């Protein structure tokens, strides 16, 4: 039984009258790929935003290695080794691919001022190149990110999340809008990340097959509540889940 990295305890988020997330709890274990699935609008992304301090949760706690990190600013969470991608593409179109990656790593090197007077690339060019190779973006290193294809940008987006050598990475809809070949490529790379580098993932998806293939454990949400948790096989067999999806 591997040790627990993050513990999410009874997160609840209300917007005015609506309760988007209603007391969800789960844990993330080191080295696993945890999938969080559920029909659209079941509060997956809101849950993510609460965990990462993008939104303050109305109730509940987030523990990282036993420390309470609830409501820390995203930048602080990131420096504690929790990084993420966004549902919608979020790369910096004006910067080159390599620059995007350097940026993703630089804030972890020294302080604001040592960075200012340190090397231009904060000494990250090697790591960046390695990451570029890993995601097979070599031929595009100098291109402005804005010029890449959607799929390529998705890869870059994921790569940026790994730049800082995070303890865990939260991927929000990595499969969204990616064509099949590119999807296979992405899936294969993510798995490699997990096996070769022991990276821990939490993946939000509504593409069931993708999750079922990729994840070791799955949490199912519906209308803001957790309705099931277990291995892909268990979840697939779970009546509540079937209802939730058919009822949807």
């Amino acid at each position, binding site marked *: 039984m591997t040790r627990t990295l993050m513990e999410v305890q009874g997160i609840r988020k209300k917007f005015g009258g609506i309760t988007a997330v209603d007391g969800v709890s789960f844990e993330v274990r080191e080295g696993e790929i945890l999938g969080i699935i559920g029909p659209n609008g079941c509060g997956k992304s809101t849950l993510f935003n609460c965990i990462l301090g993008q939104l303050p949760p109305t109730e509940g706690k987030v523990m990282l290695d036993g420390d309470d990190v609830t409501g820390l600013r995203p930048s602080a969470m990131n*420096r504690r080794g929790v990084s993420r991608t966004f549902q919608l593409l*979020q790369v910096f179109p*004006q*910067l080159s691919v390599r620059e995007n990656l*350097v*940026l993703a790593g630089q804030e972890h090197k020294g302080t604001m001022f040592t*960075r200012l007077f340190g090397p231009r690339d904060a000494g990250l060019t090697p790591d960046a190149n390695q990451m570029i190779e890993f995601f097979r973006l070599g031929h595009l290193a100098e291109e402005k990110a804005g010029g890449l294809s959607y799929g390529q940008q998705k890869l870059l987006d994921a790569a940026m999340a790994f730049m800082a050598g995070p303890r865990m990475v939260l991927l929000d809809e990595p499969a969204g809008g990616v064509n099949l070949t590119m999807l296979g490529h992405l899936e294969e790379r993510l798995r490699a990340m997990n096996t070769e580098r022991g990276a821990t993932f939490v993946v939000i998806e509504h593409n069931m097959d993708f999750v079922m293939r990729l994840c070791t454990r799955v949490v199912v949400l519906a209308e803001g509540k957790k309705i099931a948790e277990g291995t892909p096989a268990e979840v697939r067999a779970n009546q509540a889940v079937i209802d939730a999806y058919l009822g949807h």
Partner: protein
Amino acid sequence: MSRSVLLKTFGVLIVGALIFLPLTLNRYGIYIMSLWAIMTIAAMGLNLTLGYAGQVSLAQGAFVGLGAYTVAIMMSAGFGFWLPLLIAIVITFAVGWLLGYPALRVQHHYLAFVTLAFSTLVFLVFRNEEWLTKGIYGIMGFKRPSAFGVSFQKPIEFYYFTLGALALASAFMAWLVRSPWGRAFVALRENPVRALSLGVDTRRYTLMAFAIGSAMGGFSGALYAPLVEFVDPTPFTLALSLNLLMMVIVGGSGFFFGPFLGAAIGVLLPEWLRFAHGWYLTIYALFVMILLIKTPTGILGIIENMIAARKTRAASAARAAASAGLDKV
């Protein structure tokens, strides 16, 4: 990429012109060139705040004023030039930092209005606090600086002094925007949320963008005072802030050389349009509107487009994204 091509092509020509052209000019021509150098420094500062970090500011003129008054007041009190210069930069840096705080709460037009209000308030202080600023009469009777026994009294001498200052400021900017900070500023402009999630402390970078930009405004003001050898409130109204903003936009906001070009147009325009008599401002305004309608990335934006037009589709897609990038400003 294309930017550096631009640089190589014209760099030599321009630098040469800046050094030797004034020798052929009369004193007025030299004054205009000095004014250009000084305004370029102020515009560069605004370009950092607006063009790189994406924070709207309608207060750059006020910072030029703060710099000018600091130097004028201290020089009349007999402090020489260099200490006042330093103080001017420190003060404007600090005030700029404070003005950055609203930017942490509000964006876009709200920020524009806060800074607008600020610059109007500063003008009122200049005009009303007679004990300090001599009010509407203005401060006179301080001399141009001299350094290491070299005096910068004569117009041409002072021009080279300002040119040196410009070179210094440019070097600093070039270093800054290529540093990790420069990268963080761009990230801040293009996508603050994503930047935050990558550990970029957007608050501190926002404040820094304001502080450094304002300090450059102060630096430029500190040079403006000895250029005119007289400081009064009238030049530092909102109009100056708007002019500087237009210089940045017209030249090309977010381009390193945008301010140089924008300031050249803003400062030299009355000369080029002399034939138009009273109409020159009308023509300028018209030009700005048409330019902006064509592209919001300014003249350098157009030039970049023309260069990149010969490149691959990928590159052209990049520029689409680039001009979209300005929406975030």
